[in-house]
């Protein structure tokens, strides 16, 4: 950042972030109140069960791990001026290719095998991002539409494998694969479900912050997003950047997918994602691609997602209530760019 008013800019960013947090909690409260529940009690319960108790907190962080990665998967293309709605599909394809690598690579030390499985997940997500990226770079189809459509295709492909060739014979009534052979080697904090995926998320968040803010590559990426016409006239390979941003974004979402399969479920099944890809989109829009914002907002959305279970028990709310809430937040968020446009 070369802007001298850097401190000013950070004050402004923090202000916007806290405003968003307050707004979301407000909407949540109103929503509960409209359902005839006591919002204060709900907040208290959430605080008590999900934040102040170590086990609850670790569960929040467990949910936060894939959100960090899928949000980054949306943020990287966003910096290049692309709207990636397809993190959900990329997440699933990462899960799929990672599973394939787990079953089909043999004869390697477990650690190496694990690394290859994670890489395969990134490749799967990256390929699923490459398709819309290439179509956009060629100037054929807008990436928003293709990523959205590919979100419908990905579950069908995963479904084909878990219902068909990869289905575990021993548990025939559940459509799922057998346990992945790498599962026992995946680093997990003892006594919790907190796993390596969280640290990978933090690592990539830090990398993202550094690369977009300080490196030449980040500057070039943001130049492509900020004014593609000027970037082209300056001799930047704009098309290659568009493709690269989608591949990178897809790879990060794919990593989230494979980590979820290995760490949480142990096997591939239809329900590996409760919508982490969509939530990642939400996180990025709430955070306007700012790294600190991504950290805060994925934590917040993880709390909300976990509170779904708490509320199910304490307030007898169906879990789907949380989905309704997320949709509400989405509307709040989508109004944001327009307000910003007016301010200029």
């Amino acid at each position, binding site marked *: 950042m*070369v802007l001298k008013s850097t401190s000013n800019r950070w004050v402004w960013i923090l202000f916007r972030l806290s405003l968003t947090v307050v707004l979301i909690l407000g909407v949540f409260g109103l929503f509960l109140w409209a359902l005839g529940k006591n919002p204060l009690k709900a907040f208290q319960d959430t605080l008590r069960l999900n934040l102040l108790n170590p086990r609850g907190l670790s569960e929040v962080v467990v949910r936060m791990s894939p959100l960090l990665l899928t949000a980054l998967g949306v943020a990287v293309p966003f910096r290049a001026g692309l709207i990636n709605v397809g993190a959900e599909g990329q997440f699933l394809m990462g899960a799929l290719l990672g599973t394939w690598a787990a079953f089909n690579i043999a004869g390697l030390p477990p650690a190496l095998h694990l690394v290859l499985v994670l890489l395969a997940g990134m490749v799967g997500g990256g390929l699923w991002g490459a398709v819309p990226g290439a179509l956009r770079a060629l100037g054929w189809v807008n990436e928003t539409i293709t990523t959205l459509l590919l979100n419908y295709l990905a579950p069908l492909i995963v479904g084909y494998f878990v219902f068909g060739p990869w289905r575990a014979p021993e548990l025939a009534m559940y459509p799922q694969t057998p346990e992945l052979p790498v599962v026992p080697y995946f680093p997990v904090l003892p006594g919790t479900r907190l796993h390596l995926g969280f640290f990978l998320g933090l690592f990539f968040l830090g990398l993202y912050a550094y690369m977009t803010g300080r*490196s030449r*590559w980040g500057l070039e990426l943001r130049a492509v997003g900020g004014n593609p*016409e*000027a970037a082209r*006239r*300056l001799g930047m390979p704009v098309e290659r950047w568009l493709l690269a941003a989608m591949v990178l974004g897809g790879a990060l979402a794919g990593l989230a997918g494979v980590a979820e399969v290995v760490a949480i479920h142990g096997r591939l099944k239809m329900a590996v994602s409760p919508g982490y890809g969509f939530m990642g989109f939400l996180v990025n829009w709430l955070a306007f691609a700012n790294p600190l914002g991504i950290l805060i907002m994925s934590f917040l959305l993880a709390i909300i997602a976990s509170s779904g279970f708490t509320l199910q028990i304490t307030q007898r709310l169906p879990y789907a209530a949380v989905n309704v809430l997320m949709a509400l937040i989405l509307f709040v968020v989508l109004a944001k760019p327009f307000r910003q446009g007016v301010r200029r």
Partner: protein
Amino acid sequence: MDEDRLTCESDKTVVCLRGITKRFPGVLANDHVDFQLQSGEIHALLGENGAGKSTLVKILYGFYHADAGEILVHGRPVHIRSPRDARALGLGMVFQGFTLIPAMTVAENVALFQAELPRFFSPRELEQSIRAASDQYGLALDPKAPVWQLSIGEQQRVELLKLLLAGARILIFDEPTKVLVPHEVEALFRVFESLRAQGFSIIFITHKLREALSCADRITVMRQGRVVGTLLARAATEESLLHMMFGEKLPEITRSPGSRAPGEVVLELRDVCTRPVGTAPALDHVNLKVRAGEIVGIAGVSGNGQRELGDVVLGLLRIVRGKKFFLGQDATSWSPRQLVRRGIAFVPEDPLSMAVVPGFSTLENFALMDLQAFSKFLGTVMNWGKVRTFFREGFTKLGLSPLPEPVRASTLSGGNLQRLTLVRELSRPYHLVVGLYPTRGLDVRSANAVRQAFLVAREQGKGVLLISEDLQELFSLCDRVLVIFRGRIVGEFRPEEADLTEVGRLMTGAGVLHGS
């Protein structure tokens, strides 16, 4: 000035600004500005780039809010919080970028702007009222014409018509002549005069002293956020205005006449044709050579293929027939990236949309010139110290004062944006520089600095392709001038043997019928 202060409350003063002050982070854009506009006058606002002219009129029109000072309209103090307030007071502003919808007709565009348009209106009545207004003020507009077919000058007059029909009596123009060709400028000034005769008051900003002297009644000169003075146009001369604007005598441009023979060919277009895009003309068998140490000018009315010519040179527009050579190599199908790397510097006509990233600071924008050279360790670390050094050097070398580094490009004044682009492009290693209207929007001193920079480039043995509408500029700088009309090169001249009327005839297509 005391005399002016007295007139502030008089009936003749329609707008009075008193002590207007506006501070942006790091700059005092307006510093206790006093300004009066009288009823039925044309008032020109002059001043160097970044002097605060646009800021002043934007405050009057409610875009910005002054930190201090007051505004009186018809002698009454007013608070103008938004352009809507300004319009309610009878003010109207014509912008640089027009806000018209290309697919709609003149009448439809005008209708959209009327505040109290009935839900159902009669298109015929609307057309009649437009025709009547167009005749009354001499705008020469056809209400039924779709806007995309109109020239820039006509579109500007549609903007004006919108304001007039909405009841504006005080009109503000920010650099209205920047994008106009000479005959359109004349047409605009005729409209100004007819408006003045009917009691309208007009403020217009310009960098061309001649325009201010020929068209305005009074002239106000600004410098570094302050008003230097207001004087009657009758009593002003170019010298006195320049002195007020810069406080110093401007250096003359020096051109060594053919002191050295041009070197080898840097750029050659051989029989180049392109496909037409939209309504823009296609290049039609263009032949062109630019040698090292030579300035080649392209004269023409804008919209006759200049932009396409620039895009072909930079590799942005595909050549469907013919060949392009750069430094002796066949470059017909090279990408912009390859061409830029081999040494083409390019100054496009619209820097904000074509050359800079609006959200980046001036320094970051400068760094885009050559990111590879400005970064270390495989591009993971930017060397901002080096960027800063080159940035400052680039400005000083061209004889311009450096821009502040941390400022966002989107907040730069029009002229400063143009400077940033020029300095960046001329700071890279290059063999050929292409300039599209490079002095458009620059104040007289900066424009001269840029012209001098092109002459220096020529001395250093670079090739220069200068695309401009300013014949005087072309003929004082160039070794050869080609005339372009509808995508064809229709004539070639040497400045010393040129006949300006003949060039003018060719530019407007009059010579084409006789073949050339």
